Protein backbone atom coordinates (compact mmCIF):
# COMPACT_ATOMS: atom_id res chain seq x y z
CA UNK A 1 0.00 0.00 0.00
CA UNK A 2 1.36 3.35 -0.91
CA UNK A 3 1.95 5.32 2.22
CA UNK A 4 0.84 8.84 1.51
CA UNK A 5 3.21 10.29 4.03
CA UNK A 6 5.96 7.85 3.05
CA UNK A 7 9.60 8.68 2.69
CA UNK A 8 10.78 11.15 0.12
CA UNK A 9 12.12 8.36 -2.06
CA UNK A 10 8.76 6.52 -2.09
CA UNK A 11 6.96 9.66 -2.96
CA UNK A 12 9.38 10.52 -5.72
CA UNK A 13 9.06 7.06 -7.20
CA UNK A 14 5.28 7.13 -7.09
CA UNK A 15 5.31 10.56 -8.68
CA UNK A 16 7.61 9.40 -11.45
CA UNK A 17 5.43 6.34 -12.10
CA UNK A 18 2.03 8.01 -11.98
CA UNK A 19 2.49 11.66 -12.81
CA UNK A 20 5.51 12.08 -15.05
CA UNK A 21 4.16 9.87 -17.85
CA UNK A 22 1.75 12.77 -18.48
CA UNK A 23 4.51 15.31 -18.96
CA UNK A 24 4.06 15.41 -22.74
CA UNK A 25 0.32 15.98 -22.37
CA UNK A 26 1.02 18.87 -20.00
CA UNK A 27 3.73 20.27 -22.23
CA UNK A 28 1.38 20.25 -25.21
CA UNK A 29 -1.26 22.12 -23.27
CA UNK A 30 1.26 24.56 -21.79
CA UNK A 31 2.50 25.44 -25.28
CA UNK A 32 -1.07 25.98 -26.44
CA UNK A 33 -1.99 28.16 -23.49
CA UNK A 34 1.14 30.24 -23.11
CA UNK A 35 2.00 30.58 -26.79
CA UNK A 36 5.57 31.49 -26.07
CA UNK A 37 8.19 28.90 -25.18
CA UNK A 38 9.61 30.61 -22.11
CA UNK A 39 6.22 31.10 -20.51
CA UNK A 40 5.20 27.58 -21.49
CA UNK A 41 8.29 26.06 -19.90
CA UNK A 42 7.82 28.16 -16.81
CA UNK A 43 4.17 27.16 -16.60
CA UNK A 44 5.05 23.50 -17.08
CA UNK A 45 7.74 23.51 -14.43
CA UNK A 46 5.59 25.30 -11.92
CA UNK A 47 2.76 22.86 -12.58
CA UNK A 48 4.92 19.79 -12.07
CA UNK A 49 6.47 21.16 -8.89
CA UNK A 50 3.09 22.08 -7.52
CA UNK A 51 1.71 18.66 -8.38
CA UNK A 52 4.67 17.13 -6.57
CA UNK A 53 4.06 19.30 -3.57
CA UNK A 54 0.38 18.39 -3.44
CA UNK A 55 0.81 14.81 -4.60
CA UNK A 56 -0.52 13.48 -1.29
CA UNK A 57 -3.87 15.01 -2.30
CA UNK A 58 -4.04 13.04 -5.54
CA UNK A 59 -6.54 10.20 -5.23
CA UNK A 60 -4.92 7.06 -6.61
CA UNK A 61 -7.03 5.38 -9.22
CA UNK A 62 -8.44 8.63 -10.60
CA UNK A 63 -7.14 10.21 -13.77
CA UNK A 64 -3.75 11.68 -12.95
CA UNK A 65 -3.56 13.52 -16.27
CA UNK A 66 -6.83 15.32 -15.51
CA UNK A 67 -5.59 16.15 -12.02
CA UNK A 68 -2.36 17.64 -13.34
CA UNK A 69 -4.16 19.53 -16.09
CA UNK A 70 -6.37 21.05 -13.39
CA UNK A 71 -3.25 22.35 -11.66
CA UNK A 72 -1.87 23.57 -14.96
CA UNK A 73 -5.01 25.56 -15.70
CA UNK A 74 -5.07 26.99 -12.18
CA UNK A 75 -1.46 28.04 -12.56
CA UNK A 76 -2.16 29.47 -15.95
CA UNK A 77 -4.92 31.65 -14.60
CA UNK A 78 -2.63 32.47 -11.72
CA UNK A 79 -0.74 35.00 -13.75
CA UNK A 80 0.38 33.46 -17.02
CA UNK A 81 -2.68 34.44 -18.88
CA UNK A 82 -1.90 38.11 -19.13
CA UNK A 83 0.97 37.84 -21.56
CA UNK A 84 -0.77 35.31 -23.74
CA UNK A 85 -4.12 36.99 -23.94
CA UNK A 86 -4.38 37.48 -27.62
CA UNK A 87 -7.99 37.14 -28.70
CA UNK A 88 -9.02 40.32 -30.41
CA UNK A 89 -12.74 40.85 -30.01
CA UNK A 90 -13.18 40.94 -33.74
CA UNK A 91 -12.18 37.33 -34.24
CA UNK A 92 -14.77 36.25 -31.68
CA UNK A 93 -17.40 38.38 -33.35
CA UNK A 94 -16.48 37.05 -36.72
CA UNK A 95 -16.78 33.52 -35.48
CA UNK A 96 -20.10 34.32 -33.84
CA UNK A 97 -21.45 35.72 -37.08
CA UNK A 98 -20.38 32.71 -39.04
CA UNK A 99 -21.89 30.53 -36.41
CA UNK A 100 -25.26 32.28 -36.56
CA UNK A 101 -25.41 31.94 -40.31
CA UNK A 102 -23.97 28.59 -41.08
CA UNK A 103 -23.89 26.12 -38.28
CA UNK A 104 -27.31 24.71 -38.93
CA UNK A 105 -26.92 24.35 -42.67
CA UNK A 106 -27.05 20.77 -43.59
CA UNK A 107 -27.31 20.65 -47.35
CA UNK A 108 -25.54 17.66 -48.71
CA UNK A 109 -23.17 19.55 -50.99
CA UNK A 110 -21.41 20.96 -47.95
CA UNK A 111 -21.43 17.83 -45.89
CA UNK A 112 -18.39 16.10 -47.14
CA UNK A 113 -16.26 14.47 -44.49
CA UNK A 114 -13.76 13.15 -47.01
CA UNK A 115 -13.12 16.67 -48.19
CA UNK A 116 -12.56 17.95 -44.68
CA UNK A 117 -10.44 14.96 -43.92
CA UNK A 118 -8.18 15.51 -46.87
CA UNK A 119 -6.14 16.87 -44.06
CA UNK A 120 -2.75 16.63 -45.67
CA UNK A 121 -3.69 19.71 -47.60
CA UNK A 122 -5.10 21.36 -44.51
CA UNK A 123 -2.34 21.29 -41.96
CA UNK A 124 -1.84 25.04 -41.64
CA UNK A 125 -5.57 25.64 -41.82
CA UNK A 126 -6.29 23.45 -38.82
CA UNK A 127 -3.77 25.40 -36.81
CA UNK A 128 -5.15 28.72 -38.00
CA UNK A 129 -8.73 27.74 -37.23
CA UNK A 130 -7.77 26.44 -33.81
CA UNK A 131 -5.77 29.54 -32.99
CA UNK A 132 -8.60 31.83 -34.02
CA UNK A 133 -11.08 29.98 -31.85
CA UNK A 134 -12.09 31.96 -28.74
CA UNK A 135 -10.17 30.74 -25.74
CA UNK A 136 -13.01 29.09 -23.84
CA UNK A 137 -13.98 26.97 -26.83
CA UNK A 138 -10.39 26.14 -27.72
CA UNK A 139 -9.63 24.96 -24.20
CA UNK A 140 -12.64 22.66 -24.11
CA UNK A 141 -11.91 21.25 -27.57
CA UNK A 142 -8.25 20.62 -26.81
CA UNK A 143 -9.04 18.88 -23.54
CA UNK A 144 -11.58 16.60 -25.19
CA UNK A 145 -9.97 15.92 -28.56
CA UNK A 146 -6.25 16.17 -27.88
CA UNK A 147 -5.96 15.33 -24.19
CA UNK A 148 -8.81 12.81 -24.49
CA UNK A 149 -10.55 13.73 -21.27
CA UNK A 150 -14.20 12.97 -20.58
CA UNK A 151 -16.69 15.83 -20.24
CA UNK A 152 -16.78 15.11 -16.52
CA UNK A 153 -13.02 15.48 -16.27
CA UNK A 154 -13.01 18.64 -18.35
CA UNK A 155 -15.66 20.03 -16.04
CA UNK A 156 -13.22 19.50 -13.16
CA UNK A 157 -10.21 20.90 -14.99
CA UNK A 158 -11.93 24.10 -16.07
CA UNK A 159 -14.13 24.32 -12.99
CA UNK A 160 -17.30 24.75 -15.03
CA UNK A 161 -20.56 22.76 -15.06
CA UNK A 162 -20.68 19.72 -17.31
CA UNK A 163 -23.49 21.31 -19.36
CA UNK A 164 -21.15 24.18 -20.13
CA UNK A 165 -18.46 21.76 -21.27
CA UNK A 166 -20.98 20.17 -23.57
CA UNK A 167 -22.08 23.43 -25.11
CA UNK A 168 -18.52 24.72 -25.50
CA UNK A 169 -17.43 21.57 -27.28
CA UNK A 170 -20.49 21.70 -29.46
CA UNK A 171 -20.11 25.35 -30.41
CA UNK A 172 -16.35 25.11 -30.73
CA UNK A 173 -16.58 22.20 -33.15
CA UNK A 174 -19.25 23.97 -35.16
CA UNK A 175 -16.96 26.98 -35.48
CA UNK A 176 -14.04 24.81 -36.49
CA UNK A 177 -16.14 22.98 -39.01
CA UNK A 178 -17.28 26.24 -40.56
CA UNK A 179 -13.76 27.57 -40.71
CA UNK A 180 -12.36 24.38 -42.20
CA UNK A 181 -15.20 24.14 -44.66
CA UNK A 182 -14.56 27.61 -45.97
CA UNK A 183 -10.84 26.96 -46.18
CA UNK A 184 -11.60 23.83 -48.15
CA UNK A 185 -13.85 25.77 -50.49
CA UNK A 186 -11.23 28.42 -51.06
CA UNK A 187 -8.79 25.76 -52.03
CA UNK A 188 -11.24 24.03 -54.29
CA UNK A 189 -11.42 20.90 -52.18
CA UNK A 190 -15.16 21.40 -51.84
CA UNK A 191 -17.19 22.90 -54.65
CA UNK A 192 -19.70 25.54 -53.61
Amino acid sequence: MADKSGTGADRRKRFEDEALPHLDALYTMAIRLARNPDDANDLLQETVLRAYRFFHQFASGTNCRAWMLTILFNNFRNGYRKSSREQPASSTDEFERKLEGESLRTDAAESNPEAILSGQAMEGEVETALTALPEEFREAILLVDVEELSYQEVSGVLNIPIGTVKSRVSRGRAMLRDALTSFAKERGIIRT
Partner: protein
Amino acid sequence: MEGFDTPDRVKRAGHDKVDCSTYIEKYLSAHVDGELSAAELRDAEDHLAGCVNCRARFAEERAVKALLRERARVRRTPPVVRGSILAALDAVDAAGASRAVGRGRDRSAGADRAGLFSRRRARVWIPAAIAAVAVFVFVMLHGGAPPPAHAIAPFDVAIDNYVHFVERFEPNVKSTSPADISDAYMDHQLPGFLWNFEPSGYKLIGGRIDRLQDGTSVAYTFYRGDNGTILCTYMQSHGLQPPDGELQELGGHHYYQYKGYSICLSYPHGGFICILVSQRPMKQFVQDIVDSEP
Protein backbone atom coordinates in the same frame (compact mmCIF):
# COMPACT_ATOMS: atom_id res chain seq x y z
CA MET B 1 -53.35 -0.87 -21.55
CA GLU B 2 -52.71 2.74 -20.84
CA GLY B 3 -49.25 3.64 -19.57
CA PHE B 4 -47.58 0.51 -20.87
CA ASP B 5 -45.17 1.37 -23.66
CA THR B 6 -44.24 -1.23 -26.17
CA PRO B 7 -40.73 -0.87 -27.63
CA ASP B 8 -42.26 0.54 -30.79
CA ARG B 9 -44.11 3.25 -28.98
CA VAL B 10 -40.99 4.18 -27.03
CA LYS B 11 -39.14 4.37 -30.29
CA ARG B 12 -41.69 6.62 -31.88
CA ALA B 13 -41.75 8.88 -28.86
CA GLY B 14 -37.96 9.15 -29.05
CA HIS B 15 -38.12 9.93 -32.72
CA ASP B 16 -40.54 12.75 -32.15
CA LYS B 17 -38.38 14.20 -29.42
CA VAL B 18 -35.38 14.99 -31.60
CA ASP B 19 -35.54 17.14 -34.70
CA CYS B 20 -32.56 18.23 -36.78
CA SER B 21 -31.74 21.41 -34.92
CA THR B 22 -32.11 19.70 -31.54
CA TYR B 23 -29.87 16.89 -32.70
CA ILE B 24 -27.18 19.23 -33.97
CA GLU B 25 -27.27 21.60 -31.04
CA LYS B 26 -27.72 19.18 -28.18
CA TYR B 27 -26.65 15.72 -29.28
CA LEU B 28 -24.17 15.80 -32.13
CA SER B 29 -20.91 16.56 -30.30
CA ALA B 30 -21.69 14.41 -27.31
CA HIS B 31 -22.73 11.63 -29.70
CA VAL B 32 -19.36 11.74 -31.46
CA ASP B 33 -17.57 11.92 -28.10
CA GLY B 34 -19.46 8.96 -26.67
CA GLU B 35 -20.94 11.14 -23.95
CA LEU B 36 -24.67 10.47 -24.44
CA SER B 37 -26.67 8.60 -21.84
CA ALA B 38 -28.31 5.35 -22.95
CA ALA B 39 -31.66 7.08 -23.43
CA GLU B 40 -30.12 9.97 -25.34
CA LEU B 41 -28.15 7.59 -27.51
CA ARG B 42 -31.34 5.78 -28.44
CA ASP B 43 -33.02 9.08 -29.34
CA ALA B 44 -30.00 10.14 -31.36
CA GLU B 45 -29.81 6.89 -33.27
CA ASP B 46 -33.52 6.98 -33.96
CA HIS B 47 -33.13 10.39 -35.46
CA LEU B 48 -30.10 9.50 -37.56
CA ALA B 49 -31.83 6.42 -38.90
CA GLY B 50 -34.35 8.66 -40.63
CA CYS B 51 -32.26 11.72 -41.50
CA VAL B 52 -29.63 11.70 -44.20
CA ASN B 53 -28.49 15.26 -43.49
CA CYS B 54 -27.77 14.61 -39.85
CA ARG B 55 -25.98 11.39 -40.73
CA ALA B 56 -23.73 13.49 -42.91
CA ARG B 57 -23.26 15.99 -40.09
CA PHE B 58 -22.33 13.18 -37.74
CA ALA B 59 -19.68 11.90 -40.18
CA GLU B 60 -18.39 15.42 -40.60
CA GLU B 61 -18.19 16.09 -36.88
CA ARG B 62 -16.25 12.89 -36.47
CA ALA B 63 -13.94 13.98 -39.25
CA VAL B 64 -13.27 17.31 -37.56
CA LYS B 65 -12.46 15.51 -34.33
CA ALA B 66 -10.14 13.09 -36.08
CA LEU B 67 -8.44 15.90 -37.95
CA LEU B 68 -7.80 17.80 -34.74
CA ARG B 69 -6.49 14.77 -32.97
CA GLU B 70 -4.17 14.16 -35.88
CA ARG B 71 -3.00 17.73 -36.44
CA ALA B 72 -2.88 19.02 -32.87
CA ARG B 73 -1.59 15.87 -31.24
CA VAL B 74 0.43 15.64 -28.07
CA ARG B 75 4.01 16.78 -28.56
CA ARG B 76 7.13 15.46 -26.96
CA THR B 77 8.64 17.52 -24.18
CA PRO B 78 12.10 18.67 -25.31
CA PRO B 79 14.85 16.83 -23.39
CA VAL B 80 16.29 20.05 -21.98
CA VAL B 81 12.91 20.99 -20.50
CA ARG B 82 12.42 17.54 -19.07
CA GLY B 83 15.90 17.62 -17.59
CA SER B 84 15.28 20.94 -15.97
CA ILE B 85 12.09 19.66 -14.38
CA LEU B 86 13.80 16.57 -12.99
CA ALA B 87 16.52 18.79 -11.55
CA ALA B 88 13.87 20.98 -9.95
CA LEU B 89 12.31 17.90 -8.35
CA ASP B 90 15.76 16.95 -7.05
CA ALA B 91 16.01 20.40 -5.53
CA VAL B 92 12.64 20.01 -3.81
CA ASP B 93 13.69 16.62 -2.44
CA ALA B 94 16.94 18.10 -1.24
CA ALA B 95 15.19 21.02 0.43
CA GLY B 96 12.73 18.63 2.08
CA ALA B 97 15.56 16.41 3.32
CA SER B 98 17.53 19.32 4.69
CA ARG B 99 14.53 20.72 6.51
CA ALA B 100 13.54 17.35 7.87
CA VAL B 101 16.89 16.06 9.10
CA GLY B 102 19.16 19.05 8.89
CA ARG B 103 21.21 17.99 5.91
CA GLY B 104 20.79 18.13 2.16
CA ARG B 105 24.12 18.92 0.63
CA ASP B 106 24.21 15.62 -1.19
CA ARG B 107 21.77 16.94 -3.78
CA SER B 108 23.08 20.44 -4.02
CA ALA B 109 24.19 19.90 -7.61
CA GLY B 110 20.54 19.26 -8.47
CA ALA B 111 19.52 22.35 -6.60
CA ASP B 112 22.00 24.43 -8.55
CA ARG B 113 20.73 23.15 -11.85
CA ALA B 114 17.13 23.58 -10.84
CA GLY B 115 15.05 26.47 -11.97
CA LEU B 116 16.54 26.92 -15.38
CA PHE B 117 13.29 28.64 -16.18
CA SER B 118 12.13 29.58 -12.79
CA ARG B 119 15.02 29.90 -10.45
CA ARG B 120 13.32 31.87 -7.74
CA ARG B 121 10.22 29.74 -7.60
CA ALA B 122 11.99 26.44 -7.79
CA ARG B 123 13.68 27.03 -4.49
CA VAL B 124 10.61 27.74 -2.49
CA TRP B 125 8.43 24.71 -3.02
CA ILE B 126 8.45 22.49 0.00
CA PRO B 127 6.43 19.38 0.63
CA ALA B 128 3.05 20.15 2.08
CA ALA B 129 3.54 18.04 5.19
CA ILE B 130 6.62 20.02 6.05
CA ALA B 131 4.78 23.20 5.20
CA ALA B 132 2.11 22.38 7.73
CA VAL B 133 4.69 21.80 10.43
CA ALA B 134 6.52 24.94 9.40
CA VAL B 135 3.38 27.02 9.86
CA PHE B 136 3.29 26.01 13.48
CA VAL B 137 6.96 26.26 14.14
CA PHE B 138 7.46 29.69 12.76
CA VAL B 139 4.41 31.10 14.43
CA MET B 140 5.62 29.70 17.73
CA LEU B 141 9.14 30.98 17.23
CA HIS B 142 8.39 34.31 15.71
CA GLY B 143 4.97 35.16 17.11
CA GLY B 144 6.47 37.83 19.34
CA ALA B 145 9.31 38.92 17.08
CA PRO B 146 9.71 42.69 16.65
CA PRO B 147 8.50 44.10 13.33
CA PRO B 148 11.07 45.06 10.70
CA ALA B 149 12.74 48.23 11.92
CA HIS B 150 12.90 49.90 8.53
CA ALA B 151 9.99 51.26 6.55
CA ILE B 152 8.86 49.22 3.54
CA ALA B 153 7.14 51.65 1.20
CA PRO B 154 4.89 49.24 -0.72
CA PHE B 155 3.65 47.77 2.57
CA ASP B 156 2.85 51.26 3.84
CA VAL B 157 0.87 51.97 0.67
CA ALA B 158 -1.00 48.70 1.01
CA ILE B 159 -1.75 49.26 4.70
CA ASP B 160 -2.96 52.83 4.17
CA ASN B 161 -5.38 51.58 1.57
CA TYR B 162 -6.41 48.65 3.71
CA VAL B 163 -7.31 50.97 6.60
CA HIS B 164 -9.27 53.17 4.26
CA PHE B 165 -11.05 50.29 2.55
CA VAL B 166 -12.06 48.60 5.78
CA GLU B 167 -13.97 51.80 6.53
CA ARG B 168 -15.26 52.12 3.04
CA PHE B 169 -14.36 50.16 -0.05
CA GLU B 170 -15.31 51.81 -3.31
CA PRO B 171 -14.89 49.36 -6.14
CA ASN B 172 -14.61 50.87 -9.60
CA VAL B 173 -14.83 47.59 -11.50
CA LYS B 174 -18.54 47.43 -12.20
CA SER B 175 -19.02 43.70 -11.86
CA THR B 176 -18.38 41.66 -8.74
CA SER B 177 -17.90 38.41 -10.63
CA PRO B 178 -14.32 37.10 -10.34
CA ALA B 179 -14.12 36.55 -14.10
CA ASP B 180 -15.08 40.14 -14.91
CA ILE B 181 -12.75 41.59 -12.31
CA SER B 182 -9.96 39.42 -13.64
CA ASP B 183 -10.67 40.64 -17.16
CA ALA B 184 -10.67 44.26 -16.02
CA TYR B 185 -7.29 43.80 -14.36
CA MET B 186 -5.84 42.19 -17.44
CA ASP B 187 -7.16 45.04 -19.57
CA HIS B 188 -4.95 47.29 -17.43
CA GLN B 189 -1.95 44.98 -17.86
CA LEU B 190 -2.30 43.71 -14.30
CA PRO B 191 -2.25 40.07 -13.20
CA GLY B 192 -5.56 38.36 -13.90
CA PHE B 193 -5.39 35.90 -11.06
CA LEU B 194 -7.81 36.47 -8.20
CA TRP B 195 -7.39 34.87 -4.81
CA ASN B 196 -10.30 32.73 -3.77
CA PHE B 197 -10.66 32.91 0.00
CA GLU B 198 -14.09 31.32 0.06
CA PRO B 199 -12.73 28.13 1.63
CA SER B 200 -11.87 30.29 4.64
CA GLY B 201 -15.20 32.08 4.63
CA TYR B 202 -14.31 35.35 2.93
CA LYS B 203 -16.48 36.86 0.25
CA LEU B 204 -15.05 38.76 -2.69
CA ILE B 205 -16.41 42.29 -2.24
CA GLY B 206 -15.03 43.86 -5.40
CA GLY B 207 -12.10 45.22 -7.36
CA ARG B 208 -10.63 48.66 -7.84
CA ILE B 209 -8.04 49.90 -10.32
CA ASP B 210 -6.11 53.10 -9.72
CA ARG B 211 -3.23 54.81 -11.44
CA LEU B 212 -0.08 55.68 -9.51
CA GLN B 213 1.94 58.85 -10.04
CA ASP B 214 4.42 57.00 -12.23
CA GLY B 215 1.62 56.10 -14.62
CA THR B 216 1.46 52.40 -13.72
CA SER B 217 -1.76 50.76 -12.62
CA VAL B 218 -2.47 49.21 -9.27
CA ALA B 219 -5.34 46.85 -8.45
CA TYR B 220 -7.06 46.36 -5.12
CA THR B 221 -9.25 43.38 -4.40
CA PHE B 222 -11.16 43.38 -1.15
CA TYR B 223 -12.47 40.37 0.78
CA ARG B 224 -14.66 40.31 3.82
CA GLY B 225 -15.64 37.42 6.07
CA ASP B 226 -16.94 36.78 9.55
CA ASN B 227 -13.41 36.63 10.87
CA GLY B 228 -12.00 39.72 9.22
CA THR B 229 -10.98 41.35 6.00
CA ILE B 230 -8.18 40.90 3.48
CA LEU B 231 -6.95 43.40 0.91
CA CYS B 232 -4.98 42.17 -2.08
CA THR B 233 -2.85 44.79 -3.84
CA TYR B 234 -1.18 44.22 -7.19
CA MET B 235 1.49 46.61 -8.33
CA GLN B 236 4.67 46.54 -10.34
CA SER B 237 7.58 45.15 -8.39
CA HIS B 238 10.16 47.65 -9.67
CA GLY B 239 12.70 45.01 -8.75
CA LEU B 240 11.64 44.85 -5.11
CA GLN B 241 13.25 41.87 -3.39
CA PRO B 242 11.65 40.40 -0.27
CA PRO B 243 12.69 42.91 2.44
CA ASP B 244 14.53 41.77 5.55
CA GLY B 245 12.54 40.88 8.60
CA GLU B 246 10.30 38.24 7.10
CA LEU B 247 8.95 35.64 9.46
CA GLN B 248 8.97 32.86 6.94
CA GLU B 249 8.93 32.02 3.29
CA LEU B 250 6.28 29.42 2.58
CA GLY B 251 5.17 28.13 -0.78
CA GLY B 252 6.59 31.19 -2.52
CA HIS B 253 4.90 33.60 -0.13
CA HIS B 254 6.83 35.84 2.23
CA TYR B 255 5.14 36.58 5.52
CA TYR B 256 5.70 39.68 7.61
CA GLN B 257 4.36 41.10 10.81
CA TYR B 258 4.53 44.79 10.02
CA LYS B 259 3.13 47.73 12.01
CA GLY B 260 0.61 45.45 13.65
CA TYR B 261 -0.68 43.94 10.41
CA SER B 262 -0.23 40.50 8.94
CA ILE B 263 1.26 40.77 5.48
CA CYS B 264 1.94 38.29 2.73
CA LEU B 265 4.19 39.28 -0.17
CA SER B 266 4.37 37.19 -3.33
CA TYR B 267 5.45 37.51 -6.91
CA PRO B 268 2.89 36.76 -9.61
CA HIS B 269 4.29 36.19 -13.07
CA GLY B 270 5.30 39.24 -15.08
CA GLY B 271 7.16 41.64 -12.79
CA PHE B 272 4.43 42.26 -10.23
CA ILE B 273 4.14 42.00 -6.51
CA CYS B 274 1.05 40.89 -4.67
CA ILE B 275 0.63 42.22 -1.14
CA LEU B 276 -2.06 40.74 1.07
CA VAL B 277 -2.88 42.74 4.20
CA SER B 278 -5.06 41.63 7.08
CA GLN B 279 -5.59 42.12 10.77
CA ARG B 280 -5.98 38.39 11.24
CA PRO B 281 -3.50 36.86 13.69
CA MET B 282 -0.55 35.57 11.70
CA LYS B 283 -1.24 31.90 12.30
CA GLN B 284 -4.82 32.11 10.98
CA PHE B 285 -3.73 34.38 8.17
CA VAL B 286 -1.19 31.82 6.98
CA GLN B 287 -3.83 29.11 7.24
CA ASP B 288 -6.30 31.17 5.19
CA ILE B 289 -3.71 31.51 2.46
CA VAL B 290 -2.66 27.86 2.55
CA ASP B 291 -6.33 26.85 2.37
CA SER B 292 -6.97 29.04 -0.64
CA GLU B 293 -4.56 27.06 -2.78
CA PRO B 294 -5.41 23.75 -4.47
